[in-house]
Every structure is written in structure tokens, then in C-alpha cells.
């Protein structure tokens, strides 16, 4: 870190990513609150624990192998071998993956990607509440968080990824690489897992299972919005010189870039984040006839739909694209629910999966011909590349792995909790000691009051 400018840039970049990580933690807080608010009282602790333990399990596995995958897989296996040279510095035993005065950025950069991993796993977690075994979900969490999403990031969210180079794939704020893949994965799992007891009437009509705590749900989704700011910032390189990019950009003007090292600005993504949030909220309010939860989720779905191109869109484009996405997502959610009898408990497949897919497709048309990268020889953004990318994200790397693993777990009888336990509630089953202790202490307090001559009730 020699020279003042170099030192300042390094420290600023370290701190920048570090702050994004702290903000992104709020996404996980929000997911936890949303899931708990949506679950019934008898499943609270289980639902919470299921989501919380995603944090350590995905973290350690992302340290052991997830981060290495990102650097080693950009062309593997179809367009070249493993990039062992780039991967070497990111192996769990590399001295750069530890306290090292010669490398001050790897840890915060690793953490910024890791928080995306938590998000991917948490999206799946929401759709399967109240009936999946924790042990089963946690294996899925490791697979989506530390294997599948990071493979898609190496392919389509890396300046040298083959999807970027060959397809012109463009996904600046992760419509596909996080949301479509996680939604697709969740769809694969719930297709095997089946609906919660009582979700469908005998004639197949779906029943709404209302959230037990609307306030918790509301605060949860607002925290997700908040964390999404950090997510957006984390997708950018905050300040870099054309010399450092080493591409085709001329002159000496430093810039913020997207993950592909193509130029954008913080101003652009601030406009577009808020305009796509607004477009999503407004469209969802209209299409759901003012349903509060669909409206809130619509804001999120709006951002997700516009995210693929929010580094370049005009704010009005971001707003309209978000609105279009939300209408499609809403209609598709209910059609799939009725047609295939699927129980997506928090609408995660729709809000993340369908919105991400639709966002990629739309961006292929709106950004047709725009360079995907500052490097020579890369394909420009185009509809075929974006549609192919959407299929790879949602179906190939999302739906298929989720479905296959869930099938294996189901065949082994370790996917779903027993019906008796589902009825009595997972908290009673797993935390009966807590419930019994609570009952005992309430009884003791009443006894104490009665002994003092005060009527207990």
C-alpha cells in the first residue's frame, strides 16, 4: 500500500465494501422477520432457527469452497479449465484468506459476496416454512449459497465470465444471478416438498394462510428494502481508473463501475433503485386491489425486475419495467398456485424467481446492442443472450439442482416433517420444554397471587 493515492483508494474501497456488508445484514434480519411474521405461532422458533442457522452454515462453506469457485469457474467446464491461478489466492488455506498486511481487501470482498449467498439461501428458506426438516433445508442452504449461485456468479457476474463474453449477459444488480436462481431453486424444492396441510381445499381450491403478525412482516420487508441499498452498492466497484480496468476505456477519468467493470454512477443506481421501487409498489397496489402484503412485496419485485439493467436505465424506464414485471409476477404466481397446487408460503418464487427472469428478458430488448463489458471481443447485450441467461439461472442452476436434491431427500424420508408434528406445530415438538416451563411459571405466579389473597383471574 505504497503512495498516498494508492493507500487512500485501498482504504476507501475496504471501508466501502465493509459498510455494504453491514447494510446487507439487514436483508437477513428482514427475511427472518418476514418468515416469522408469515408463520403461525406454533412454528415461530423453528422458523426463526431455520433461517438463522443459514448464516453460520453458508459462511463456513463459503470460506471453505464457495469463494474459490467464483475465481476458478468463470470458464469451467464448457469454455476452458479451472482457473487455478486466480483461484489459488482464494483457497481456504491461502495466506490471503486470513490476517495479512499484504492483502487488505480479500476479506471484505469475500464478505460482500457471502451476504449475497445468505440472501440466496434465505429466499429458499421462506418458501418452505412450516413443513420442511431443518436438516434438509440446511443442506439446500449450503448448496444454493456456496455452490450453485456462486457458479452462476462466476459465469455471469464476473468480468471474465463466459456468459458475459459469449452471450453478452448483463445482470448488474443480480436479477438473475441471485433472484432468478434462488426463486427457481425454491420452486424445485416446493414441487417435491408439497403444500402445508390445509393449504388446498378438497376440491383443490387454494386457501390463503394469513400471516399471524402483519406488523412483523411489514417491518421485515422494509428492512429488506433497506438492506437492498447495501446490496446495490456492493454490486459496484466504487472508484477505479481506466488504467486499472485495463480495457478499452480511454482517458484518465476515474469512475464507478458495475461488476463487469463497465461504467455507471452511484447517482444512476440511486435514481433507478427508488424509481423501480415506486413502479413496483404502484403496480402491485393496483393489480392486487390494495392488498398490503402484495403491495409491499411488489416494491421488492419491482426493484428485482429492473435490477439487471439499473446501471444504465433511465429512471422512467426503471419505473415502467418494474411495473410490468410486477403485473406478470402477480398473475403468474396465482396461475402456478392453482394449476400445479404449489404452496410458495411467502411468494418467494414469484417475487424473486419470476421477477428476476422477466427482468433479464426485458433488459435484453431495452439494452440491445449496448456493450456488456469494457473489454474487446465481448458480445453486446442482446435478447437471445439474456433469455438464454435467464433459462440458465432459473432452470439449469436453480430449479434442477433444487428439485434433484429434494427428490433424493424425499426418497430417503428426510425432507418433510411428520404430519402429526406439522399439526401440533414445530415449536411444541421441538421446544416443548420451553412451552412446559412457561406454563409452569405462569401457574406458579398464579399460585403466588392466590396465596396473597388476590384473585388470579
Amino acid at each position, binding site marked *: 500500500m505504497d503512495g498516498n493515492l494508492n493507500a487512500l483508494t485501498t482504504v476507501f474501497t475496504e471501508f466501502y465494501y465493509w459498510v455494504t456488508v453491514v447494510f446487507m445484514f439487514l436483508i437477513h434480519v428482514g427475511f427472518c422477520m418476514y418468515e416469522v411474521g408469515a408463520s403461525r405461532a406454533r412454528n415461530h422458533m423453528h422458523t426463526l432457527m431455520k433461517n438463522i442457522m443459514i448464516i453460520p452454515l453458508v459462511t463456513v462453506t463459503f470460506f471453505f469452497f464457495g469463494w474459490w469457485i467464483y475465481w476458478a469457474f468463470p470458464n469451467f467446464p464448457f469454455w476452458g479449465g479451472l482457473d487455478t491461478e486466480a483461484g489459488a489466492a482464494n483457497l481456504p488455506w491461502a495466506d490471503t484468506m486470513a*490476517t495479512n498486511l499484504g492483502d487488505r481487501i480479500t476479506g471484505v470482498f469475500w464478505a460482500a459476496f457471502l451476504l449475497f449467498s445468505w440472501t440466496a439461501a434465505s429466499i429458499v428458506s421462506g418458501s418452505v416454512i412450516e413443513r420442511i426438516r431443518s436438516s434438509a433445508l440446511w443442506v439446500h442452504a449450503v448448496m444454493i449459497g456456496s455452490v450453485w449461485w456462486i457458479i452462476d456468479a462466476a459465469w455471469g457476474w464476473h468480468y471474465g465470465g463466459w456468459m458475459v463474453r459469449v452471450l453478452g449477459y448483463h445482470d448488474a444488480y443480480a436479477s438473475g444471478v441471485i433472484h432468478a436462481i434462488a426463486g427457481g431453486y425454491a420452486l424445485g424444492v416446493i414441487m417435491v416438498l408439497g403444500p402445508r396441510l390445509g393449504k388446498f381445499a378438497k376440491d383443490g381450491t387454494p386457501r390463503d394462510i394469513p400471516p399471524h403478525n402483519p406488523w412483523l412482516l411489514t417491518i421485515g420487508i422494509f428492512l429488506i428494502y433497506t438492506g437492498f441499498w447495501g446490496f446495490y452498492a456492493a454490486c459496484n466497484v466504487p472508484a477505479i481508473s481506466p488504467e486499472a480496468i485495463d480495457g478499452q476505456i480511454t482517458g484518465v477519468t476515474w469512475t464507478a463501475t458495475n461488476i463487469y467493470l463497465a461504467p455507471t454512477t452511484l447517482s444512476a443506481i440511486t435514481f433507478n433503485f427508488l424509481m423501480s421501487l415506486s413502479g413496483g409498489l404502484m403496480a402491485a397496489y393496483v393489480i392486487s386491489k390494495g392488498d398490503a402484503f402484495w403491495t409491499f412485496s411488489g416494491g421488492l419485485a419491482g426493484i428485482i425486475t429492473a435490477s439487471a439493467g439499473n446501471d444504465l436505465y433511465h429512471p422512467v424506464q426503471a419505473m415502467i419495467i418494474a411495473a410490468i414485471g410486477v403485473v406478470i409476477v402477480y398473475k403468474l404466481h396465482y396461475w402456478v398456485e392453482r394449476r400445479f397446487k404449489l404452496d410458495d408460503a411467502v411468494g418467494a418464487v414469484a417475487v424473486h424467481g419470476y421477477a428476476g427472469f422477466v427482468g433479464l428478458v426485458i433488459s435484453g430488448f431495452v439494452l440491445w446492442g449496448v456493450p456488456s463489458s469494457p473489454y474487446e471481443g465481448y458480445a453486446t447485450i442482446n435478447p437471445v443472450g439474456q433469455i438464454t441467461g435467464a433459462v440458465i439461472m432459473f432452470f439449469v442452476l436453480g430449479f434442477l439442482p433444487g428439485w434433484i436434491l429434494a427428490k433424493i431427500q424425499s426418497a430417503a424420508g428426510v425432507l418433510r416433517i411428520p404430519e402429526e408434528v406439522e399439526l401440533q406445530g414445530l415449536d411444541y415438538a421441538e421446544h416443548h420444554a420451553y412451552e412446559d416451563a412457561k406454563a409452569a411459571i405462569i401457574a406458579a405466579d398464579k399460585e403466588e397471587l392466590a396465596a396473597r389473597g388476590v384473585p388470579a383471574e
Partner: protein
Amino acid sequence: MSTNGYTSWAVDLAEVGPIYPFQGYEVLMVIVGVVFWIGWHRIQFVREGEHLEKARHTGDEEKVKAQLERY
């Protein structure tokens, strides 16, 4: 003696790299970490299976009804 190789910070930081203890044992530390991770899954998987099996037969009907009413 120092576990990280440094006994004083009177050094040029430009020449300093890793400063964690027991350098050279990174692979061994990772093996320990992976065993800890896999072991955790194993313990949790076995425990949850036993617990759910037991829970299938322990539901007090009145308590279950009360849970359903709680929503």
C-alpha cells in the same frame, strides 16, 4: 518466541505479510474446520430425526388443539 513470527512491530510494514499464529498449518486448520462443519450436520441430523420420531407420539390432544386455536 512468537506464534506468528513477530516479537516486535519495529518493522517496515511494506515487508510484512501474514501475521496470524501457526503459519504453515493452514491446510491442517482447514481440515479441522471441515470436520467441525460436517460433524455439526451429522449431530444435528441424527438428533432431529430422533426428536421428530419421538414428537410424533407425544402430542397431547388438548395441547395440540390449543396450539391450533392460537393460530
